[in-house]
């Protein structure tokens, strides 16, 4: 049963790492405007990702034998926190680094690990994850894309939608049906690794309401995969994905998506010497909540260090964190509405405009609020 999380500080010996990252970022992100930083982990730059790889900061927790840095989860927390809080354009490598490499380490064969992970760590292979389909939405168990075993391996047909960054990735790890029918729900689903340059793969970027293309729709028309495209055990894809979500939901990416806006606004208040209590209270309220979220996120990190699988705890942090990220946007917007004569920079207004529009996705990506709260309710024994 889900219980409360205990405070754990960042271990002393891990603290020094932050300085290195920060020096790197100060140079790499000089003059990077707030409205770009506001893209947070949706902003992508293959060049930036490769620079990080050159620093040894991709695959931070991956063992050295697979090209990683062999560091612990607290180092990973610190790195993620610095990247996210500075709004670095991490989208190119983010999924490969945070989800695909751990997944391959856990469920991949030794050959698969040696083939893919070192390239992930060098920033040479970018991955995406194929989950939703055009008629499935949050209902992942209703997946209809199918891989059928044939003499050359697996023959893949179907499509995936809302795949983050697929049009700029090298590989997709997709959840597909390998046996049974749609009515079997979670049964008969498997994870397969797809080289997106294969014949029969078509990628169509989806332009979003902010004019960016963070997502793609990907079509598979008789795509022939090799037999070793299967990741883990046939038919166990659902369980594997569920375990994977614990990684995806646990990190500080669920706290810092609106940091660029918050920092930009706080700086504007400082520059123009705003010091009424109501404004101070808005700032302080957000900072208090952010501090608590950081505490909760560190506690989840500690559970990872201890070898637990804190999937439900991670859902708590994500749901609570998403609320915070959206609250930052609402409150900065409301503050501007309360102070219509206050002049702010175009950079701030653009950052706000971006986040007002995209902020609604914070409670969709990685599970809607209803889904997450359902997971929490199950953890509490309510269902």
């Amino acid at each position: 049963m889900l219980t409360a999380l205990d405070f754990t500080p960042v271990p002393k010996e891990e603290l020094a790492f932050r300085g290195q990252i920060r020096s790197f970022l100060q140079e790499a992100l000089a003059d990077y405007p707030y409205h770009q930083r506001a893209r947070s982990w949706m902003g992508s730059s293959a060049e930036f990702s490769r620079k990080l790889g050159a620093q040894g900061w991709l695959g931070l927790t991956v063992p050295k034998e697979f090209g990683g840095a062999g560091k612990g989860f607290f180092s990973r927390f610190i790195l993620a926190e610095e990247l996210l809080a500075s709004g670095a354009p991490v989208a190119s490598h983010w999924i490969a680094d945070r989800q695909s490499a751990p997944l391959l380490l856990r469920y991949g064969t030794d050959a698969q690990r040696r083939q893919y992970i070192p390239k992930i760590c060098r920033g040479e292979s970018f991955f995406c994850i194929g989950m939703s389909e055009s008629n499935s939405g949050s209902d992942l168990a209703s997946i209809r894309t199918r891989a059928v075993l044939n003499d050359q391996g697996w023959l893949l047909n179907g499509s995936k939608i809302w795949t983050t960054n697929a049009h700029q990735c090298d590989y997709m790890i997709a959840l597909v049906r390998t046996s049974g029918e749609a009515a079997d729900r979670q049964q008969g689903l498997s994870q397969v690794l797809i080289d997106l340059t294969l014949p029969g793969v078509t990628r169509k970027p989806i332009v979003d309401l902010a004019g960016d293309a963070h997502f793609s729709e990907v079509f598979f028309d008789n795509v022939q995969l090799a037999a070793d495209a299967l990741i883990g055990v046939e038919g166990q894809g659902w369980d594997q994905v569920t375990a994977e979500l614990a990684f995806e939901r646990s990190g500080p990416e669920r706290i810092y998506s609106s940091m660029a806006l918050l920092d930009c606004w706080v700086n504007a208040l400082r520059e123009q010497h705003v010091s009424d209590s109501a404004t101070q209270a808005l700032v302080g309220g957000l900072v208090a909540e952010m501090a608590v979220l950081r505490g909760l996120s560190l506690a989840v990190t500690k559970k990872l260090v201890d070898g637990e699988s804190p999937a439900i705890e991670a859902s708590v942090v994500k749901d609570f964190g998403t609320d915070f990220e959206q609250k930052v946007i609402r409150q900065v917007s409301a503050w501007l509405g309360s102070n219509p004569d206050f002049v702010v920079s175009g950079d701030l207004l653009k950052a706000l405009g971006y986040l007002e529009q995209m902020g609604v996705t914070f409670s969709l990506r990685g599970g809607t609020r209803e889904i997450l709260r359902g997971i929490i309710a199950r953890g509490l024994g309510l269902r």
Partner: protein
Amino acid sequence: MQDSFFDSTEKLLSEVSSPALIRKIEHGGDTTAMWSSLEASGFGDALVPESAGGAGLTLSDIGSVLFSIGRHAVPLPFAHTLLARAWLNDAGLALPKGAVTFAPFQVDKSGDGVTARAVSFGKTTDWVLAQKNEDVWLLPVAEASVATSGGYGSVDADLRWPTEVGKRSLIGRWSVDQFQPLLALSMAALIAGVSDRVYEMTLAYANQRVQFGKPIGKFQALQQQISEMAEQVFGARMAVQMACQSNSWRPLPALAAMAKAQTSQAVARVSSTAHAVHGAIGVTAEYDLQLYTRRLNEWARLGGGYGYWAHKLGASVLQCDRSVLDYVRLDLFGEPV
């Protein structure tokens, strides 16, 4: 608000301000054709007296028209123009050709000209009625330098005029805050209208979209959210109907404050529920929802948001010595003591 003006405006705007045309204008497309069609509706001079060539209608007559303009997220300041023309006529000034918006905030007169920042419809208007302290200008956008002041798709702008244009466009001195209530009233009507549109789309989608084997509208969690959304949308509409109660073209300042406060506070819930129900499809450029929720978010803070207008209203409540009910009855409903 379902009257014949509403029906005819709806009919007109569903063609004139279609999603495809809104997209064009958001991307800098020419506004001339849309403006001509709007003018052709005959509502442009609705609030101007018959003696001055207008229709001589009152604000309460055309509340449904303003609401409909909001429902179609018209990307030009048509609602503003109706009120601006009435004000200009009242001030004894000639009516300029084209769209007029208001700039009662963030206006600065400096050595080298006039600046108006974060002007609603600043990119698609022809004229800006601006006020700073007691100075009032009617400024031509054709002679301004224009910079987008909002996020992607915004039609708001920072505008700057050179000294000589500023001088020539100064139309006189009036008591302060001429345009604040006018802007508040127009924005409130637009918000109520676009909220209604967003609600309509959300309800339809909830009934149509199937997940986990049934329409998502059958899930209790979404039902609860949509019901609350309906309350907010009905409330916003009621606020605007009340604010339009007037025997002249001019809104009561307290009612305009009430309406802008109430409609602006509804936006967060309306927008978030709409997107929660629509899921990922709702944030794609292709799907129309975003054209309307984008305006919702911007309009909630433009021209003063909830906090500003609630403070204006609250100040007037605290300044009198009436019970709260009597303030509401007398000052907002116009009932007798």
